[in-house]
């Protein structure tokens, strides 16, 4: 029995080296099960990011990060609207499709002025002909989409529709954009 004591003590010591409490381990498991939706991008090199735990529990009509099927304003044309809210502002992108699927979706200046995002109270638009924003949906499974995006935008200096004033064309670069596990609401 005496010989077993060192073995027991070593076992006890090693088991105590687990790096988290039981509660922390259970919460980590719980988060892994409910999932986390994330979105991040850089605005002229400044990172914007957020994550939403249990994204499916968000309201389909008022969410922080999600994509919802709706009708284009004033029409009966179905679209999918990807929307994101962070501490620096909001972002939106419309997938003009009746049936969302994996693929490439892009807008450029030839479509007319299109709002893309708000970054610390400056609205950034697809405005100039050289502007564009493009999204790639790389996976769409179990009602969640993941992918990446990038763009070149123009800031709006003062709003005064129809005579809005814009800043330097194409001066806002959106890089390293990615989204993961974003729920699609119907």
């Amino acid at each position, binding site marked *: *029995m005496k010989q077993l004591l060192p073995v027991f*003590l070593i076992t006890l010591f090693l088991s*105590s080296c687990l790096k*988290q409490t039981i*509660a922390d381990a*259970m919460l980590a498991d719980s988060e892994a099960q409910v999932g986390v939706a994330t979105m991040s991008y850089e605005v002229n090199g400044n990172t914007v990011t957020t994550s939403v*735990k249990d994204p499916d529990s968000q309201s389909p009509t008022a969410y922080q990060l999600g994509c919802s099927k709706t009708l284009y304003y004033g029409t009966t044309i179905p679209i999918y609207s990807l929307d994101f809210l962070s501490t620096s502002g909001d972002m939106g992108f419309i997938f003009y499709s009746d049936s969302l699927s994996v693929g490439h979706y892009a807008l450029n200046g030839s479509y007319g002025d299109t709002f893309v995002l708000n970054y610390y109270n400056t609205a950034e638009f697809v405005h100039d002909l050289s502007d564009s924003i493009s999204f790639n949906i790389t996976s769409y499974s179990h009602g969640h989409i993941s992918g990446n995006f990038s763009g070149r935008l123009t800031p709006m200096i003062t709003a005064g529709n129809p005579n809005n004033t814009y800043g330097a064309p194409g001066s806002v670069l959106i890089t390293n954009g990615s989204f993961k596990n974003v729920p699609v609401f119907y």
Partner: protein
Amino acid sequence: MRALKPTNTMLKGILASILFFIAVNAEAQLGVIKMVGPNTGQYSFGIGAYVKGIFPVSQAADLTLELGANLFFLNDGGTGDGTAVIPIKAGYRYSLNGTGMGFYVEPQVGYNIYGVTSENVDGYTKDLTFHGLVLAAGTGYLFMAGKTPLDLNLHYETVIAHGGSDNYVSLGLTFYLRFGKRDTDY
């Protein structure tokens, strides 16, 4: 007539009762405990109590069976948050001088019958229940205070579940509920 079928809980209770009845000695303790390890800084001192059946196997050694209850109080902004565990453990207590008194060591192994951590998660109190393997090692000093046998002891214990562990140290003074005679003169 339908026969009364004992449930698992009933069988466990009967077994525990038998074991405690055949114990030659029994003791009870009230002690101070402290959760230790990663992410336990918000835990204040807790309290622990146990009853223990003692089965002498030699002049120097006892087999022990212990049922405990430990409460740890958590200061995380929630109300009534903390951790509670109810372990049952079997152990081998060996007195170093071979008399059954004086300094001893006691490795233990067992099962956590019930454990719960209530903690503040995103502003809400969440209850996380668990069971798990229990390993413990203790040392102490058995002595007589007049005609009253006492046991001043220090224990280290870990509960392992869900890939994490709750580790704690306890310091306690044990009172004997019923005490059988050894050959030692006291």
